C-alpha cells in the first residue's frame, strides 16, 4: 500500500501555500478579535487554532487515503451529509437568523459546509462515467440536478441563501466544465430567459421588494446597506500602504457585524492597504491555479473533475466573499477559505485541500 512514490511526489508547494494562507488568516483573526472591541474575544483565536489542528488531521487522512476510494463511497458520503442537513433542520440551533448549526457539547458544526464537498464528490463520480466530447444532454443532467437540488432545498430551508447559492455555482461550474451539449445549453439558457420574467411577475410586491433589497444593499440603508458602506469605508481607508497591524479596527469596524467571519477581509484591507491586499489576492489566485494544475496533471477523469470541483469551491468562495465586502455582490454569508473564522469551514477546506494533495501525489500512478 505505502508506495515510495507517494512521498516523492508529495505536493510540498501546496502545503506551503496553505501554511501561508493560514498564517494570513490567523493574523487577520487576531486583529479582528482584539483591537476595536470593548472586550477582546481571545477565545475565538484559540478555537480557530484548535480547528486548524483538527483540520490538519483531516487533511492528512485525506491525502493518505486514495482518492479513488471516494468514488466508491460517493453515495454513502452523500447520504450521510444530506441526513445531517435534515437533522440540523429538526434539531439545529438558531444563529444569525437561520438554523444552521448542530451543537454537540462544546462543539458546533455546520453541515452545509461539508455538504458542498459531498456534492462535488458525487457529481464527479457521475460525470466521470458519462462524460462525452459532445457534452451532456438534458436527460443526462436530470440525475445530477436532483442530486444537487436536494441539499440545495434543505439549505434554503435553514435559510442560508449564501451557501445555497454557492452550492449551485459550484455544481454549475463543474457541469459546464465537463461540457453541456450545445443544444441543451441553448435550451437551458432559453428556458431561463423565459422563466425568470415569468416568476418575477408572479411574485407578490413584498417578495419583489425583498429580492431587490437583497440584490442591491443600498435599498436597505439601515441594515445591509449600512454594513456594506462601513465595509467599503474600511477597505478604502487602507489606501496604498494601509494603517498598519492592529491600527485599522478602531473606528468603522466596531460597526461591522461578523468582522471575524464574513467581513474579515474588511479587517485585513485597512491594515495592509492595496499593496498588502494585492499580495493576498495573488496568493489566493495561486492556490486556485494550483488546483487547476493538479486537475491538469491528473490522469483519470474522476480525479480531474474532483480537482476542478474543489478548485471551483475555493474560487467561488473567494470571489463571492471579497466581491461582497467590496459592494459588488449582494450580502451573503460565505466564508473566505482559511481566513474567516469558522470550525466547519476550516475543517472542510483542509480536507478538500488534502484531497487535492492526494490527487497530486498519485498523478504518476495508473490503475
Amino acid at each position, binding site marked *: 500500500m505505502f508506495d515510495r512514490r507517494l512521498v516523492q511526489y508529495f505536493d510540498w508547494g501546496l502545503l506551503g501555500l496553505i501554511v501561508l494562507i493560514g498564517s494570513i488568516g490567523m493574523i487577520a483573526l487576531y486583529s479582528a478579535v482584539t483591537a476595536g472591541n470593548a472586550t477582546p474575544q481571545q477565545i475565538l483565536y484559540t478555537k480557530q487554532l484548535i480547528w486548524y489542528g483538527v483540520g490538519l488531521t483531516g487533511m492528512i487522512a485525506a491525502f493518505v487515503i486514495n482518492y479513488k476510494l471516494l468514488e466508491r463511497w460517493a453515495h454513502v458520503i452523500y447520504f450521510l451529509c444530506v441526513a445531517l442537513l435534515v437533522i440540523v433542520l429538526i434539531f439545529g440551533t438558531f444563529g444569525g437568523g437561520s438554523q444552521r448549526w448542530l451543537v454537540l457539547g462544546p462543539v458546533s458544526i455546520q453541515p452545509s459546509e461539508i455538504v458542498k464537498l459531498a456534492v462535488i464528490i458525487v457529481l464527479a463520480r457521475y460525470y466521470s462515467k458519462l462524460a462525452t466530447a*459532445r457534452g451532456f444532454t438534458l436527460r443526462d443532467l436530470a440525475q445530477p440536478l436532483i442530486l444537487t437540488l436536494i441539499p440545495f432545498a434543505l439549505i434554503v430551508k435553514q435559510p442560508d441563501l449564501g451557501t445555497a447559492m454557492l452550492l449551485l455555482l459550484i455544481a454549475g461550474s463543474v457541469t459546464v466544465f465537463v461540457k453541456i451539449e450545445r443544444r441543451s445549453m441553448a435550451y437551458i439558457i432559453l428556458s431561463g430567459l423565459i422563466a425568470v420574467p415569468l416568476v418575477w411577475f408572479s411574485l407578490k410586491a413584498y417578495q419583489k421588494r425583498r429580492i431587490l433589497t437583497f440584490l442591491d444593499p443600498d435599498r436597505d*440603508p439601515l441594515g445591509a446597506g449600512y454594513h456594506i*458602506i462601513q465595509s467599503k469605508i474600511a477597505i*478604502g481607508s*487602507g489606501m496604498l500602504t494601509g494603517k498598519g497591524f492592529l491600527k485599522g479596527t478602531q473606528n468603522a469596524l*466596531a460597526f461591522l457585524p461578523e468582522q471575524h467571519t464574513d467581513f474579515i477581509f474588511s479587517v485585513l*484591507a*485597512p491594515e495592509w492597504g492595496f499593496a498588502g491586499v494585492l499580495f493576498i489576492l495573488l496568493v489566493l489566485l495561486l492556490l486556485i491555479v494550483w488546483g487547476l494544475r493538479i486537475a491538469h496533471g491528473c490522469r483519470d477523469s474522476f480525479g480531474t473533475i474532483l480537482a476542478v470541483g474543489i478548485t471551483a469551491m475555493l474560487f467561488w468562495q473567494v470571489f463571492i466573499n471579497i466581491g461582497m465586502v467590496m459592494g459588488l455582490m449582494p450580502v451573503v454569508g460565505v466564508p473566505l477559505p482559511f481566513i474567516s473564522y469558522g470550525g466547519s469551514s476550516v475543517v472542510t477546506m483542509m480536507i478538500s485541500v488534502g484531497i487535492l494533495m492526494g490527487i497530486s501525489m498519485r498523478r504518476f500512478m495508473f490503475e
Partner: protein
Amino acid sequence: MRKYLKTADSDWFNQRLTGVMYCVVVAFAILVVRLFYLQIIEGHEYRRLSENNSIRLQSVDAPRGLILDRNGRLLVDNRPSFDLNIILKDAKPVDQTVARLAEYMQVPAEDLVAKIAPGGGVSSYKPVLLKQDIGRDALAAIEVHKFDLPGIVMLINPRRHYIFENSAAHLIGYMGEINNNELNCGDYPGCRVGDYIGKFGIERSYESVLRGQRGGRQVEVNVNGQVVRVLKTVRARPGKNIFLTIDYNLQQTTEKLLKDRAGAAVAMDPKTGEVLAMVSSPSFDQNMFVSGMSHEAWQALVTNPHRPLENKAIQAEYPPASTYKVVVALAALEEGLIDTETTYNCPGYHRFGDRVFRCWRRGGHGTVNVVRALAESCDVFFYNVGHELGVDTIARYARACGLGQPTGVSLANEANGLIPTTTWKVQRFGEPWQGGETLPVAIGQGYDLTTPIQMLMVTAAVANNGFINRPQLLKKIETADGQVVERGRILANGRLPASQQTLAIVKRGLWEVVNTDGGTARWARLAKIEMAGKTGTAQVVGRKKGEESIPEEEMEAHLKPHAWFLAYAPADDPAIAVTVIVEHGEHGSSAAAPIARDMIRTYLMEKYDPRQVASAESDKSEG
C-alpha cells in the same frame, strides 16, 4: 454510440482547463480593479470617512396614530419632544463638556453625570439620554453654544399629547415604558428597550394599530459628532388613526355632570352597540404618564380611596339593586309564572319563615301587577316572584341576558360580575343555598354583582326589542393619509331570552317609571322627549337587625348606598341607552336619574337638529 471520455483523453480536459483558467484570471482582475478603485482612487475620501466613524445610523421614531371621536374631533395627538443626548466618544473631554452643558442649562452638573455613569461598556457611539423634553429656553441655549459642546445631540421624538386633560382618560388610557416581559413575549415586534407602548385603555387594546414603523437615516457627522449631511432616509411609517364611537360633546357633558362624584356613566346606541360616552370618576390627567410622574404623584393616584385609576364603567362591580328587577320580571313573565293580571299585595313588608323582609316604601305599595311593580319599584312583589322562580332560574335568565360574564368590549381588565347559583354557593362557601337568600337576590342585593357596562348592554337590548349587542368602541381605522382601513361592525352577543310580548310588558313598566305619577323617576321627566328607565339604590352595607330604623340621610357618607339609573330614549324608537351609577349617591332617583336625563337631553338635542326647528319658523314667516 457515445464516445465516453475516460482516462486517456486528457487533451480534451486540458482544453477546458485552459478556458477555466482564463475565466478565473478575469474574475480576479475584476476584484483587483474594484480594490484599486476603492483604495487608490477613492482612498482619500474613505480614509477621511473612517476617521471618527463618520457615517452613522440614526433612528427615527414613527408618529403614533391619532385618536379621534366619531365626528373626527381630535382627542389625542403627538407633539415633538426635544431630547438631550450625549455621545461619549465625540464629547471628549467628557467632564468639560458636561460642565459647560450644566452651565448653559443652569442645572447642577451632578444630575447630568448621574445619567452617564452606568453605560461605560456599551458602544460609546450610542447616544445616552441626558434629559427628555427639554424646554424651549434650554433648547435655545444649547443650540447657540453648539460648537462649544461636542458630542451633544438633540434628538426630536414624537410624544403623546392628550388634548383634553382628565377627559376620557380611562377609555383612551395611557402609555408606559415597555418592560422585559413584554419585550420577550413576542406581542410587540419591532419594539426596543425604552420604547413606550399603550398600557391601559384604547392605547393598549389597539397598540398594534396605533404604533407605526420606525425608520432611520444614514448620516454623515463631523468631528464633533454633529450631523452635517443626511445620506439616506428610510421613512418612518406613522401609525393608523383610530376614530372612536364616542361623541365628544356627550362625553364632555357627562364628565361635567359626574365631576364631583365617584361613579361611572356609559351611553350606547341600542341599534348598533356603539358606545357614545364612557366616563369614570374620579379621573386623572393622562399627560402625567407621558413625561413620567414623580413618586408622590403616583402614590397619590394609587392610594386615593376613590380609585381614580380604575375604569369603573367596566372594572367596578356593584350590586345591581332594583335595576335587577328588569331581569327578574322578564324571567317571571317568560316562564309563564305571571302575566299582566297577576298581582301581589305589598303592605311594606314580607314575611318569610321567621324573618321579615322590608319594602323600601314603609307604607307599602298596595296591590300591584308587574308593570306597576317595576314603575314603583316594589320590593315585595319581587320577593314573591323571586321566591317562586328560585335562584337558579333567575341566574339562568340573568346569564342569558349577558350578566355574570364580560361583555367583550375591547378594553382590558373587564370584570365578570357575579350571578349566584346554588352550585356557586356550595363551591364558594361550602354551604347549601337557603331559601331566604333568594329574596335579596331578586331585588338585586345579596350576592349579585354587575358592572355598569353589563347593565348598559341589557338596557340597550331591552330598548331595541331583544338584540344583545356587544359594546363597540371602534368606529373606523384610517391610515395617516385618510384611507379607511377598517370599520366597526355590529357584533351580537345573543338575544334576550324573552318574547316580544314579554319585552313589551317590561318596556311598559320602564316607561311608567318616568312618565307616570308614582314612578320612581318622575322628577327626571323630559319635556319633549319620552324617556324610559329604572332606578336602583344599592345598599353598601347590610343593615343589622334593629338598625333598620336609621334613616339613610343620617348614615355616614361612605356607608350611603350607591345610586343607579338605567334609561333609554326616545321610548318608542330608542336612539340612546344610558347607565349611570353614583357611588354613595343615596337614591337612584335623585342622584343618578338627573344625570342620565341630562345626558340624553344633550345627545338627542344634538341629533334632532335644532336648525330644523328654526327653518320651520322661517318658512312660516315667509309664507
